[in-house]
């Protein structure tokens, strides 16, 4: 049975344009301009236990909105969702004890207090038994290298340290489902890498189901086997990362080194030349029949070495967004 089931989920924000101030607010109660944004439109997907799904899309695509509905923060306009069998926006304590949401741009830790105080508060809130609390905290501080900063006020921590502390707070109750909204935002390359390694290891060890959004392609390439791509509230790809390349790119890139000089005219007509010197060539060949065509080149050309490459994943995704951004 899937852990997360979403069917035809939609969210339309209704908001009002209004001027600041008490009087204008009161006035706006009676007469105001109503604006709407369809942030999420009839989205459906399921996630199985233990999966780590990358949830991608350009700014304003509806990722955060979807995660907020799954976390029970927002009521959907229409549609259904179940996580661990619960309707998220009913906010049952039994559900809330089994998931966590971490938003990279919002802190849950108490700003003026040492991180440890927030952890102790969570222990109380989630009713975590003392031995389990100790064990989990030790494990997490070990994995995240957090020992020295436990007793420092959160506002004095670096962004990287703070994100680690946020993550620790979110994992103390050993959630079965974890929503991570841009957990690596603003971190330096090294810290990003560390965070990524942690998330990957945690997912593998604990079998936690994770949905993660990020604008960093490295995150996605390193972490998620499966991606869901959303744009303007609509899902237009759901599947393995590798399949995405096939969907978007009709070509593969072939790099060759020759044993003796080869003229441009000697290269087959189906090979679109990207770069060429007398003894090397990089060409693009149609994905279709690529095996047969490569064999043909191996036969006709004096090839010393050959590599066939997929497009780099961030190029692929960029391509997806670009294609999609063009008016239909």
């Amino acid at each position, binding site marked *: 049975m899937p852990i997360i089931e979403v069917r035809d989920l939609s969210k339309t*924000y*209704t*908001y009002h344009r*209004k001027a*600041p*101030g*008490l009087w*204008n*607010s*009161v006035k*706006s*109660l009676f007469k105001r301009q109503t604006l709407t944004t369809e942030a999420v439109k009839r989205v459906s997907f399921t996630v199985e236990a233990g999966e780590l799904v990358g949830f991608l899309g350009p700014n304003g695509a509806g990722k*955060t909105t979807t995660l*907020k509905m799954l*976390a*029970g*923060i*927002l*009521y959907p306009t229409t549609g259904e969702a179940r996580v661990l069998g619960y309707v998220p926006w009913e*906010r049952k*304590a*039994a559900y*809330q*004890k089994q*998931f*966590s*949401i971490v*938003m990279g*741009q*919002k802190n*849950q830790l*108490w700003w*003026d*207090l040492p991180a440890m*105080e927030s952890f*102790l*508060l969570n222990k*109380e*809130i*989630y*009713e975590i038994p003392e031995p389990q609390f100790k064990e989990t905290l030790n494990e997490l501080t070990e994995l995240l290298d957090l020992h020295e900063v436990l007793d420092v*006020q959160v506002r004095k921590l670096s962004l990287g340290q703070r994100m680690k502390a946020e993550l620790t707070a979110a994992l103390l109750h050993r959630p079965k489902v974890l929503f991570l909204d841009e957990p690596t935002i603003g971190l330096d390359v090294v810290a990003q890498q560390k965070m990524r390694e942690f998330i990957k290891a945690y997912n593998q060890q604990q079998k936690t189901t994770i949905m993660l959004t990020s604008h960093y392609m490295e995150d996605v390439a390193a972490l998620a086997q499966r991606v869901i791509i959303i744009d303007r509230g609509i899902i237009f790809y759901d599947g393995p990362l590798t399949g995405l390349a096939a969907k978007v790119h009709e070509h593969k890139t072939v790099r060759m080194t020759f044993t003796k000089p080869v003229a441009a005219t000697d290269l087959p007509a189906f090979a679109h030349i990207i770069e060429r010197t007398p003894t090397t060539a990089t060409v693009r060949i149609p994905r279709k029949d690529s095996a047969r065509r490569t064999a043909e080149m191996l036969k006709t050309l004096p090839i010393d070495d050959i590599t066939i490459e997929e497009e780099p994943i961030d190029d692929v995704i960029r391509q997806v967004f670009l294609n999609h951004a063009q008016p239909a």
Partner: protein
Amino acid sequence: MQRYIRLFFRYLSTDIIREAEFRGGFFLLLVSNLIEFTVTVAFFSLLYGSVPTVGGWSYPEALFLVATYSIIGNLSGAFFLRNFARFSEYIRTGLLDTFLTKPVDAQFAATLRYHAISNLISLLPSVALLMISLHRLGLTITVVNAVGYVLLLVLGLIIVYCLWFAISLLAFWLTQINELQELWFSLYDFARYPPPIYDGGVRILFTFVIPVLTVVAVPTEFFLEHTQPAAIGYNVAIAATLLIVTRLLWKVGLRRYASASS
């Protein structure tokens, strides 16, 4: 229930840690509370310098009322102020999210999370004034009086919580305003004076529609032995009704809550 009491004390303890950190702010608040208190008392002694009674209340009776007003004011300042002061910000900035995803009642967490401990210290002058007025009245403290008074104070605090919460809840509908707190303070000010000084309309408004007058007057009158059971019953009914109504408003508000982008 037990869990909520434990949580409440954990919140309280984190605030003691926090206030110890910001000693400057702590003393500033204490001093400003004391000044405000002194001004109120001075005003009453001036007023009674020219008239023997106000609305049938003698000077020491009015002092008892002021002391009660100030005790409830300081207690609600200690336990409610810092929460309601943030409430519209929670909604505007989406900070409410944090409370909505945790397995603790979100109303409890959002409205009883923060405390201003220094307000508890300003209880001392209020209690001293209470004693002085009792001495002047020649009244002694009996068990019935004391217990009844404390229970009615708690009841008053519940009503204050609800009224203040109801005002703060307006933030779900009027997001861009910060003046809501001022609105509460000016309402509560009406409870500082003996109710008879207000004439018809105002008195009805603040007894039945926005019942701030009874909050302070009922415990005071109980202690001074002027109270009819009807007034106590009225406050109990008001407190129960307001708890239910604000709970419903909170639920309706949450349905409107749109968090904040990002």
